[in-house]
């Protein structure tokens, strides 16, 4: 194990963390504002990947050009889902809400399978495997462009989203609704509209992440649940449920933790690392590393 290799692994972990962060940000936003655990979040990520594939196959657009459109499309779809499915569920007990989002996830998997089939597909970018190489401490580190771009864009978008939350009127309205829906309503904020925008935004972020990573993976309808949902939940809890910056930081931490876990404990234990972090955080730091709400 040379130093260069160790650095390579950690850097890759960081890149992975960037993607995790964006996925988790959407999830935590939805929870923060609506207090709903969106079990269907991963399906929106998968949807983003499939849309990227279609954009590539039908229009020859690479995922990075198509990304803003994919975000917009899923934003709208998410908003529709919110209106039809989530909104009515908000007045019901927690368990009903959870089962409804689970139902939504099953429905989405079915729909994606109907539209795109159950088989594995991939975005065949010609430069999908090109790497950016550089020398460090006498060894070589290679990072694929796809991963680099995906991570950088993901973090940038998350940063942008954070800025929107902090400095725009709508963003502030979201944070107000998150802290105290009743008070927000009394202040004249249209909480229903906020919920709509939040769900659309959150799921749009997930789809965006999907589009960004699409050249690197084989996609099938259950991809999101298989690969990302556990990490997303771990990160949301680690970063404090509802805390946007927490999700960002948490994502990077988990990405690195998994890399370290893989390095020292072997690949099979990677998932175990995430789950252990999850269990430990829930037990000892139940409010996450940021005790508060959305910053």
């Amino acid at each position, binding site marked *: *194990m040379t130093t260069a*290799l160790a650095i*390579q*692994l950690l850097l*890759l*972990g960081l890149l*992975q963390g960037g993607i995790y962060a964006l996925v988790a940000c959407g999830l935590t936003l939805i929870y923060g504002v609506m207090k709903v655990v969106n079990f269907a979040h991963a399906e929106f990520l998968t949807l983003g990947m499939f849309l990227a594939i279609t954009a590539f196959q039908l229009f020859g657009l690479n995922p990075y050009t198509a990304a803003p459109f994919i975000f917009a499309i899923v934003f709208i779809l998410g908003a529709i889902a919110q209106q039809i499915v989530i909104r009515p569920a908000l007045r019901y007990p927690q368990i009903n809400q959870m089962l409804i989002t689970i139902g939504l996830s099953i429905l989405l998997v079915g729909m994606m399978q109907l539209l795109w089939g*159950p*088989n*594995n*597909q*991939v975005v*065949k970018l010609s430069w*999908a*495997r090109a*790497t950016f190489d550089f020398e460090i401490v006498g060894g*070589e580190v*290679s*990072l*694929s462009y796809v991963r680099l771009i995906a991570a950088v864009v993901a973090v940038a978008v998350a940063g942008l989203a954070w800025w929107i939350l902090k400095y725009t009127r709508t963003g502030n309205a979201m944070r107000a609704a998150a802290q105290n829906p009743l008070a927000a309503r009394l202040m004249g904020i249209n909480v229903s509209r906020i919920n709509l925008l939040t769900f659309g935004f959150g799921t749009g972020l997930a789809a965006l992440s999907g589009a960004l990573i699409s050249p*690197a*993976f*084989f996609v*099938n309808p*259950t*991809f999101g649940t*298989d*690969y*990302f949902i556990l*990490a997303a939940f771990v990160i949301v809890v680690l970063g404090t449920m509802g805390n946007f910056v927490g999700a960002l930081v948490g994502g990077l931490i988990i990405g690195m933790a*998994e*890399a370290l876990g*893989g*390095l020292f404990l*072997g*690949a*099979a*234990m*990677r*998932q175990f690392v995430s789950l252990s972090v999850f269990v430990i955080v829930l037990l000892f730091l139940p409010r996450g590393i940021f005790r508060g709400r959305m910053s």
Partner: protein
Amino acid sequence: MKKPKQSAVCSVSTPNSTRRATVAGMGAAIAAATLPIPASAQSKDIKVGFLLPLTGAFAEAGQLIKSAVDMAVEEINKAGGIKSIGGRLVPVYGNSSSPDEANTETNRMISTEKVSAIVGAYSSGATISSTVIAERASIPYLVPNALADEITERGLKFVFKTVPHFSQFAINGAQMVKDLSAKAKRPVKTVSLVRENNFFGNVVGKAFSAHLGKAGLELVKDNIFPTNPTSFEDIIVALKGQNPDVVFAAGEPSSITLLFQQLKELKYWPKLGWVGCGGGYTNPTVVQNLGSLAEGMLVINDWFPDINRPGSKELNERFKKRTGGKDLLGNANTTYAAVHILADALQRAASPDGAKIRDALATTRITSGPATFMYEQVTFDAKGMMPNSLLIGAQVQKGSARVVWPNSLKVAEGVWPVPAPR
């Protein structure tokens, strides 16, 4: 709590007991009505159950196999069906994406559909549990697509298996790399494994650990990765440290693109070559999607279209035409052969009776006909295993898998050592 006064509106006069009975009766009626109507027992057609993973993670493989079965059934019926009985072969499909489901479907096939034999079930877990049900009902069960040794090691009389034991992967795989290395005059000694932490991966791991030593090779490390990994970096870095001559790998299609992409990213390639074992690596979509990255990859499996056996190329072309370009790979080939083997047994049994078919299967001796696109000879031993089942090695050359080992079946020379893919 005191009971308030009875409501002024009179309640319905039906006595409680009758009402309860009616509810129970309705429940029973509904239950009965949801049963599928059992097929008429009048016709002479022979029903055979096919347990396949038509949904879920292996749905792609399951659907491919179904197409192969349909093709075989069509061919048999066009040639006159099962002539000794005077009826056609009728397939009954059931879903086996989990042992639970496989059991339920097996029961349905036996009790409701009244099949005379069963073929299945792709995943070892589902096969292990459903064969027990068939055994109890004295229905012969042919396994052309699940590998677990236990299937034939439990003393069941009605179970027959045409695919080799897991240990063959290690035995044949080791022999192949030794032969290729001897020809290229390059020594081969160390081996590393890269395999998924699932059923197939686990048994492959055990098989290699047990048999490599006997073949004179040394297993440096058994690298295990979890199902649905998001990255292979740790494995690849570990491999660099292990520096083996050859890497043997097993996994599902979804993880393979990522693995190969990261192999390129991290610039690692074994000294002599990379050998993929089984299903995932022979998945035609995988080879297609990997493009140039798959060039030179060696794959071990039951059969490849580009093989030195009679009728194989034509068969594959027929299948490709039928499925819009898909090769007869991934146990679609073994299951196709199984249908013909079963038809041969049905012909000799001349009866839809399970026990007679079982005996006919046990005395199978096929040396010509449709099944020889794959097998030189089909016989079963006392445990129900096919003794001459063999695993074959092919190499991806210019985008398609061509058989390079063993010598009697090869159509091309293996390129060894394998240069790292561009």
